[in-house]
């Protein structure tokens, strides 16, 4: 009965996130069977800048003395880039359309993988987004053992060992989830955060705090900005087709 319902819903181009992890899993392995159900796109753009108001907290120093191969990649004592502020602008903020797209809209996963690199015993990038079913390619650029553990709550996790430089592993996620923490247990300071999305309307603020989300259909959206230590802020934005709207966020003690 459930299967018949699913087939019927597919026929009506209404297969949505609510369809369950099993469907999304199939999409991840078999290419883009959900292409027929692609959600709307457009030419609207949302841009913004993330400010950090007040004094930025100092990032903790990392003692890499046990991992000389990683330590050698830094000229001075490495720090854990939890809060990256340049000229009052905050990097590594995950900004995404939280609501406003049609219910159940899905978008095909791009064929190109999202790459997560382990280099100098830190993750690069630290904050990243991926589509449901899209491949996350995890790379070890360090000649040391890393394990990559994903600790999601909505998705299934994994914990993979990568003992040598040059090794890659790929994984996919079945359901949207903001954010999936990734960690290395050999190096307790290593953390990355992955936003798993059902649509491509997300971005991560750059070193200068700016971000751009493009290709949106016209509409009113709730935009959420997420930062690993500074929390979450939301904003409502309306944008016309071909138009552009601004969504500036401010984090920090004086925000």
């Amino acid at each position: 009965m459930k299967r018949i319902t699913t087939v019927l819903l597919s026929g009506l181009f209404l297969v949505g996130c609510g369809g369950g992890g099993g469907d999304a899993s199939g999409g991840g392995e078999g290419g883009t069977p959900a292409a027929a159900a692609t959600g709307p796109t457009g030419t609207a753009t949302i841009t913004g800048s993330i400010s950090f108001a007040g004094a930025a907290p100092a990032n903790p120093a990392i003692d890499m003395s046990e991992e000389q191969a990683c330590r050698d990649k830094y000229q001075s004592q490495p720090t854990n880039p939890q809060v990256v502020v340049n000229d009052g602008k905050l990097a590594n903020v995950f900004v995404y359309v939280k609501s406003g797209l049609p219910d159940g809209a899905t978008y095909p996963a791009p064929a190109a993988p999202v790459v997560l690199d382990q280099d100098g015993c830190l993750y690069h990038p630290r904050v990243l987004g991926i589509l449901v079913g899209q491949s996350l390619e995890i790379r070890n650029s360090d000649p040391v053992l890393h394990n990559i553990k994903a600790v999601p709550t909505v998705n299934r996790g994994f914990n993979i060992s990568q003992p040598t430089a040059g090794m890659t592993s790929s994984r996919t996620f079945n359901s949207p989830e903001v954010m999936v923490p990734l960690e290395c247990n050999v190096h307790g300071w290593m953390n990355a955060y992955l936003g798993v999305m059902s649509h491509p309307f997300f971005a991560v603020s750059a070193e200068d705090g700016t971000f751009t989300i493009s290709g949106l259909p016209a509409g009113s959206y709730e935009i959420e900005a997420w930062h690993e230590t500074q929390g979450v802020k939301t904003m409502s934005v309306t944008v016309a087709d071909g138009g552009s709207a601004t969504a500036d966020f401010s984090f920090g003690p004086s925000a």
Partner: protein
Amino acid sequence: MTRRILLLLLVPHGAAAAQDTPGKATYERWCAGCHGDAGAGDGEAASYMLPRPRDFTKGVYQVRTTASGSLPTDADLRRVIDEGMPGTAMPGWRTRLSERERNDLVSYLKSFSRFFQTDTPELLELGRAPGGGADAIAEGRQVYETLECFKCHGQAGRGDGTSAPTLTDDDGHPIRAADLTKARNFNGGAAVEQIYARLRTGLDGTPMPSFSDAVTSSVITDEQLWRVAQYVRSLSPQRQPAVREVIRAHLVPQLPASPDDTAWAGAEAYFVPLVGQIIVAPRSFAPTVDAVWVRAMHDGERLAIRIAWHDPSRSPDPVWQEWLDRVAASVHRDDTTGVVQGPDRLILQFPVSASPDAEPPFFLGGSSRRPVHVWRWESEPDRVQEGSGAGLGQFTPGPASQTTHASRFDNGEWQVQITRALTPVDTAAAPVFTPGGLVPLAFVAADGSSGENEVQGSVSAWYAVYLDIPTPGRVFVQPLVAAVFTAGLGLFVILRAQRRERGAPDSHAEAS
């Protein structure tokens, strides 16, 4: 449908309600105390345990035959219910619950997590172990190095790697890197095949990753991973060590000078299991030390006892502060004062005057009515104090030290040798060790980096040390006399028979 109605008709009314959900009643009676009514791992006893009871709502299980991140099979769940999780508070239920009850528990556990409705277990092809042997183990050691297993498990496999103090489970509770020399505590079983399976599947929910990707991407071969399993297995005794209550002190011409003296290999090692001290407050619910190995020797003048045990930290050690903070936050403590790192400790206690007939004093450090004599070693400063104990932590130093000692910390193992004259200066205050006699003794161990001390530590019951007596000369002479006599008698019989044969040449014919 018809069948269900028939079944309902067959079952008495009252029982029908109880059997609505198979496994529920059994779960609530036997499992909920630790795992919680809703399976969230938050039962009343949960905060007294490390590691914590499993949270079934997440559908994340350590011991599986499936890929990392995958659900376990029903057989995987049944196995854990049947066998328990050695080294944790989870017992095996094979002999306590019927097969049907255990199967019902499997389906009830699965009902706690939505993942069992949407996902299917991804089984791994695990294959069979290749032949082992010394070369296989040596190669396994090399791969252990290549894979950097030592980062967590340590160079000697004792769970003392550089990353060990930082390890947490998925919920942020501190978790030990397994001591690979204690196969008896391996959650998934001690067989090579089971160790290999853990390498392939990882232990989900813990820092232990899966090495399946390393094999599929040809970083190592499948055979090399088997070699690691064979090497890891070789680090533990083949059989679970037996507990023997009497520790034999071998008589030797000369006592070893230090705990790493090779002469100690000549003395039998005795396994003494320890448990958390949970009788006197403040109690110890998740102790580090679960056993000590004891050897003893005497030379007719002095007794030397060597105690060895595994402790990943040489306490106090600032590197382990992070660990202690997590333990303090995770495990229930009776004392509300700040938790600080102390030294590692080992306490030996003896009845003040040993008499084989008398019942020994209270095993937890004696009592004011019947105190014990105490040898109290600590790592920082490295010293042994002797004195009188009137209960755990109720220690009064004696007038003078009569013991000498030497201690050594090596890759997650403490080795302490304590030596004393068989006869103390004050025979009324300390036990006299007599060759041929038994002296009761009991042990307390504490890991200072986990906030343990002489009260909150691990304890043993009473054991006894027996001192070999010198072998009397007659033991050697009597067999010699007997041998000469027997040979002489034999010779006499033979000679006599030969003589008779010569005298009666037809005897053979007569006999036939």
